[in-house]
C-alpha cells in the first residue's frame, strides 16, 4: 500500500469516527431534550415558613386498637367470593387457636394494612414538599408522601408502601397511593387477610378529628379481591410524654438472643419459635 493510499485510508477512518461521534452526540442530546432531568429545587425560606401554616401533627401517635377491631364489624370489607372463602377459613383457624401468621416473616405490613391494624406508635414529619410517616416496631415503617405537586410515575416500581402523592385541602391531607406489591396483604388482623393481587389504589383523607385525635379516612380500591371500594376509618391518639418517643424496632431482632460466639464476640443466636412465631425456651 502506497503512502497516498495509507493517507486516504486514515482520513476515511477518521471521518467515519468523527461522523459516529457526532451521530452519537446528536442522539444523546435528542434523548436529553425529550426527558430533561428533573431536579428537586432546594427549599427556600418561604417554603420552610409555609410549614408553619399547616396543622400541628407533632408528637407521637398511638392507634385506637379497640376501634380498629370494632370497625371490621361496622365497616365490613366487601370481599369478593374467592377472597371471602379464604377469609372465612383464616378466621376459623384464628378462632381455633391455630392462626396463620401473615407477617411472621417480618416483611412489612405494607399499605394499607399498616394504617389498618398497627398496634404501634407512629409520627409525622413535615418538610417542604413532603410528609413522612415513620412507624415504630416491625422494622420502623416508613411512608414518603410527596406534596410538591408531582404525579405518580407512569409505571412505578411496586413497593410495600407504594408511591404516595398528597395535597392539602384546608387542614386535611389527601393522599393517593399506587404501585403497591400485589403480594402484600389487605389484612384485618395479624392472622386474617388476603394478598391484594395487584392494581391496588388507596385514597386517604387525614385530619384532626379533635385537637389530639387524628382521623384517617381510607378508601381501598382492590379490584381483584373486593367487589367495591372499601371505606373505613382509623384513629390515632396524640402523646407528648417523652416516654412515647419513637424507638428503634427491628422485626428480625426478635428471632435472636444476645449471646457469645465461639470466639467470645457478642453475637446474635437464633431462638426457637413455634410455627406461628411464638418464642419457645431452649430444649423445649
Amino acid at each position, binding site marked *: 500500500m502506497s503512502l497516498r493510499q495509507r493517507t486516504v485510508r486514515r482520513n476515511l477512518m477518521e471521518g467515519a469516527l468523527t461522523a459516529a461521534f457526532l451521530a452519537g452526540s446528536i442522539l444523546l442530546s435528542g434523548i436529553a431534550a425529550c426527558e430533561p432531568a428533573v431536579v428537586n429545587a432546594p427549599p427556600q425560606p418561604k417554603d420552610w415558613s409555609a410549614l408553619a401554616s399547616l396543622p400541628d401533627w407533632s408528637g407521637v401517635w*398511638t392507634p*385506637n*386498637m*379497640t376501634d380498629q377491631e370494632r370497625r371490621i364489624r361496622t365497616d365490613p370489607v366487601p370481599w369478593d367470593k374467592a377472597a371471602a372463602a379464604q377469609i372465612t377459613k383464616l378466621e376459623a383457624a*384464628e*378462632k381455633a*387457636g*391455630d*392462626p396463620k*401468621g401473615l*407477617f*411472621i416473616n*417480618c416483611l412489612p*405490613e405494607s399499605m394499607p394494612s399498616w394504617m389498618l391494624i*398497627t*398496634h*404501634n*406508635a407512629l409520627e409525622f414529619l413535615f418538610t417542604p414538599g413532603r410528609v413522612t410517616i415513620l412507624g*415504630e*416496631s*416491625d422494622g420502623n415503617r416508613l411512608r414518603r408522601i410527596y406534596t410538591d405537586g408531582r404525579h405518580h410515575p407512569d409505571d412505578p416500581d411496586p413497593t410495600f408502601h407504594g408511591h404516595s402523592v398528597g395535597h392539602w385541602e384546608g387542614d386535611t391531607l389527601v393522599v393517593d397511593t399506587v404501585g403497591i406489591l400485589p403480594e402484600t396483604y389487605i389484612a384485618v*388482623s*395479624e*392472622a386474617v387477610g388476603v394478598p391484594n393481587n395487584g392494581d391496588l389504589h388507596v385514597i386517604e383523607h387525614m385530619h384532626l378529628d*379533635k385537637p*389530639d*385525635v387524628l382521623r384517617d379516612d381510607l378508601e381501598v380500591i382492590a379490584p381483584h379481591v373486593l367487589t367495591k371500594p372499601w371505606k373505613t376509618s382509623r384513629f390515632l*391518639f*396524640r*402523646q*407528648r*410524654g417523652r*416516654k*412515647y418517643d*419513637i*424507638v*428503634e*424496632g*427491628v*422485626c428480625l*431482632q*426478635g428471632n*435472636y*438472643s*444476645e449471646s457469645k460466639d465461639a470466639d467470645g464476640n457478642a453475637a446474635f443466636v437464633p*431462638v426457637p419459635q*413455634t410455627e*406461628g*412465631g*411464638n*418464642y*419457645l*425456651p*431452649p*430444649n*423445649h
Partner: protein
Amino acid sequence: MKRNWFRVALVLASLALALPVAAHHSFAMFDFSKTMTLKGTVTEFRWTNPHVALLVQLDAQPGAAPEVWSMELTSPGNLTRGGWTRHSFKPGDRIELVFNPLRDGKHGGAFDKATILETGQVISSDLRAAEKPGIE
C-alpha cells in the same frame, strides 16, 4: 349455676380482649381462658423487638423436673410507656408468674403479670390503657 358459668365466660372474654396483643403475629395461639400462676426464677430477659421475652425456670412440681418456660410480651417501645425498662427483670429474680399458656401444651405463654418475691413489686402491662391522648 349455668348463669354463673356464663358470667365467668363473659369476664374471661373481656379479659382476653383487654390483654396486650403483639405487633407482628396473632396471639390466638395462647389460651386466654386459662390462667396459670407459678413460681420460678428468671433465667433470661430479652428486651427485643417485636416481642420482649421473659424466660423463667419454674419451680419443680412434685414428681417432675424443673422446666424453663418462655413468656411473650409486646414491644420494648410499648412496655417503656408502661414504665418498664430493659432492667425490669434480671436473671436470678425469684418471681410469681401469671400467664396464659400456649394451647398446644408447649412451654410458652403470654405474660400477664409477675411479682418479684424479694420486693413485692408487681409488674404488669396493659397496652389498651394507652388508648387515649395526652398520657404523661
